[in-house]
């Protein structure tokens, strides 16, 4: 069994690297571009080979730096896997897991980097016209482009290979720990978490949603921003599985991009919250006294700010400052993150205050450990469980806040979708009453995502809390 998975992982990694020889971009009337030429021609102009006489001259600028890194990581993974097979090296195997994860995640980042259409995953499409004096003028231009077989296969194969390497790694470590009955707090927490069916369900849903939202657009034949009035407000049908919106854009495609934006907002907000919250809370809790007093008054002020009104006013201020739709996403992340941190700061401070009084901290004091050492080795590891729980639940809250803000038209702005601003379709009374496919799916996805996150957070809280043991 283990051997089969071992070889399967290697084959899958080789196959996903082989995808680079297949077409990544296909154009109407032109020869398609494969992955390797995207990599070798980074920041160069490649002229597209015409298939028909009447076609204009197009050049393609590749900027898929992430694609290059993905490729490199796949090669590294392959090397490490073979090495771990030959030498039975545990470290090489862990390296392979990390490297393949990095590869898959980078490919996802490359995809989410896209703003308008499939070509932007990989570069820019330019129309080259020769002027009278022999100069060439480049203009960005729209041309019907689709993701090729290679790019799509790469997503499937790389995710499959990631899973198979993970399974391999799990089998390996399960074998090693057989007969080894040492229970660490972490292994106990994992055990407890696994018993919680709701939490597992939540984790599975979140994983699926992230994969679909970040990697799904590769499989879509519709571009994100291109409008088509003739196809507007179509009912769900065979070509548009979830129908089209009021400008004729495919709703499923927008739902995936929107999810990417909403989920990314959730994660980045919590990242900001953790960064500011732990630093402020940690300093206040550890040093106490005057510093604590001042910092906690600032926290009090932020906690007394009326949250939703302030967020909405800031959203309106963004509109008044003419922030462009592309940049609004980042501002939304910063605004919500900056308003969220006090919760985390207060929690971290409370934890540290109670931990500081424990006997083992007195022992650390008596041993004459340095501050840095005490904080990093003894305080932080004990705060992390509570932090993970709070952070998980806050991701859900951040997604809810972002969706409400975007729904009111003050967050992520059209034409870029987020789940919240897609529900704005209800502003047209007829669409609201008669065309529910235009606004129900994004609302449902918000709900399902946040519910899954809450299931997970709830499970984590029980898992880390020794009092909750059955």
């Amino acid at each position, binding site marked *: 069994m283990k051997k089969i998975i071992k070889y399967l992982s290697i084959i899958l990694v080789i196959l996903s690297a082989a995808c680079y020889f297949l077409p990544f971009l296909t154009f109407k009337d032109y020869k398609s571009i494969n992955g390797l030429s995207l990599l070798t021609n980074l920041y160069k102009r490649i002229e597209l080979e015409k298939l028909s006489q009447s076609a204009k001259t197009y050049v393609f600028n590749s900027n898929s730096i992430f694609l290059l890194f993905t490729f490199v990581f796949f090669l590294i993974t392959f090397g490490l896997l073979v090495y771990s097979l030959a030498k039975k090296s545990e470290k090489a195997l862990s390296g392979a897991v990390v490297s393949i994860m990095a590869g898959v995640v980078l490919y996802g980042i490359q995809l989410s980097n896209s703003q308008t259409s499939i070509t932007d995953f990989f570069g820019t499409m330019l129309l080259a016209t020769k002027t009278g004096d022999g100069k060439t003028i480049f203009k960005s231009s729209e041309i019907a482009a689709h993701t090729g077989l290679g790019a799509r296969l790469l997503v499937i194969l790389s995710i499959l290979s990631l899973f198979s390497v993970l399974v391999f790694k799990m089998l390996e470590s399960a074998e090693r720990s057989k007969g080894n009955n040492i229970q660490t707090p972490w292994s106990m927490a994992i055990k407890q978490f696994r018993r919680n069916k*709701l939490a597992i369900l939540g984790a599975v849903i979140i994983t699926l949603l992230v994969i679909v939202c970040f990697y799904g657009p590769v499989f879509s034949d519709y571009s994100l921003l291109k409008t088509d009035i003739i196809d507007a407000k179509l009912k769900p049908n065979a070509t548009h599985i979830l129908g089209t919106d009021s400008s004729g854009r495919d709703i499923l495609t927008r739902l995936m991009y929107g999810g990417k934006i909403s989920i990314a907002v959730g994660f980045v907000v919590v990242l900001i919250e953790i960064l500011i919250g732990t630093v402020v809370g940690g300093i206040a809790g550890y040093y106490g006294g005057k510093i604590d007093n001042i910092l906690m*008054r*600032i926290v*009090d*002020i932020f*906690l*007394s*700010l*009326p949250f*939703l*009104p*302030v967020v*909405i*006013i*800031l*959203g*309106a*201020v963004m509109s*008044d*400052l003419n922030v462009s739709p592309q940049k609004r996403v980042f501002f939304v992340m910063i605004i919500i993150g900056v308003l969220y941190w006090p919760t985390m700061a207060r929690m971290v401070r409370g934890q540290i205050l109670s931990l500081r009084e424990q006997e083992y901290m007195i022992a650390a004091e008596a041993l004459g450990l340095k501050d840095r050492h005490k904080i990093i080795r003894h305080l932080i590891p004990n705060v992390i469980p509570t932090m993970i729980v709070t952070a998980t639940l806050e991701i*859900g809250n951040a997604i*809810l806040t972002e*969706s*409400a803000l975007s*729904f*009111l038209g*003050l967050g992520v702005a059209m034409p870029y979708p987020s789940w*919240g601003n897609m*529900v704005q379709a*209800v502003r047209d009374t007829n669409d*609201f*009453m008669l065309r*529910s496919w235009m*606004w*129900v799916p994004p*609302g*449902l996805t*918000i*709900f399902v995502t*946040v*519910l899954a*996150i*809450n*299931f997970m957070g*709830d499970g984590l809280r029980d898992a880390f809390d020794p009092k909750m043991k*059955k």
Partner: protein
Amino acid sequence: MWNYIARRLLQMIPIVIGVSIIIFLIINLVPGNFIDAKAQTSHMSQEQIQHLKDLYGINDPIHVKYVKWISGAVHGDFGDSFTHQKPVSKVISTFVWNSFLIAIIAFILELLIAIPIGIISATHQYSKTDYFFTVIALIGISLPSFFLGLVLIKVFAVDLKWLPLAGLDTPGTSFAGIQFLLDRLKHVILPSLVLAFLSIGQLMRYTRTSVLEIIKQDYIRTARAKGLSEKVVVYKHALRNALIPVVTYIGISLPSLFAGAIITESIFGIPGIGKIALDAVTKRDYPLLMGFSMFVAVLTLLGNLLSDILYAVVDPRVKLK
């Protein structure tokens, strides 16, 4: 006790000042001013514009502006709302009652539903009932308010036509007495349900945790050892202590009943303070927005104070210092 309240009120002052500074700065991030905007549409001479600007203090440095605003605010004078052409405090006191109406109904529903299911969940920990209620509670926490509101309107007002679409009264009617009350009730039932459902989760989890904690204590074991029935143990001995945190939750919530629900009120077209605030955002009615934000901030602080006081009132073990 009175000493404690007085000191807490004093401690609130710097926080209120901090909040007011932040709100003031955010609003003043906005470029341009309403005099220039007006000057573009109406014919005003340069002197008139200058005169108006001096009158409204638009060219003052920001700290002077702030001092002017805050010294008015201390006396309850937040300036005049642009859109309503009335003092801000007057606008708030007019519309706050509509918000309070749906909020209080929602609050009563919340208490009536959340506390019993919280207790049942705790006494039947890890049973099917417990899981069922936990999932319901988590669903309530996870629903976006606007989406729940829209779905309810679509189902009950558009498709089934049982309830009105929006507003507080049926337009064009002037009911009196019972008829008026019935009509009002039909209008407020959906928004109140939305508000209640969204908050049930939190209170239910709160009750559950607190009952669980109490049930594990020694005095409960003693009560059981005496041979008391489970009913008496839970409802007579455990509940009294278990409900103490719940009482503090009620204390926090009471003032916020006046704060308005921006999204729910807007979806249901309820002319409450939340909807007025959202309209003020779209119309850039800054005096009203600043007044409203300060109003909500003070309500939050009062909620915290009230919950601490209630805690001391219901739990004799707590001594306020």
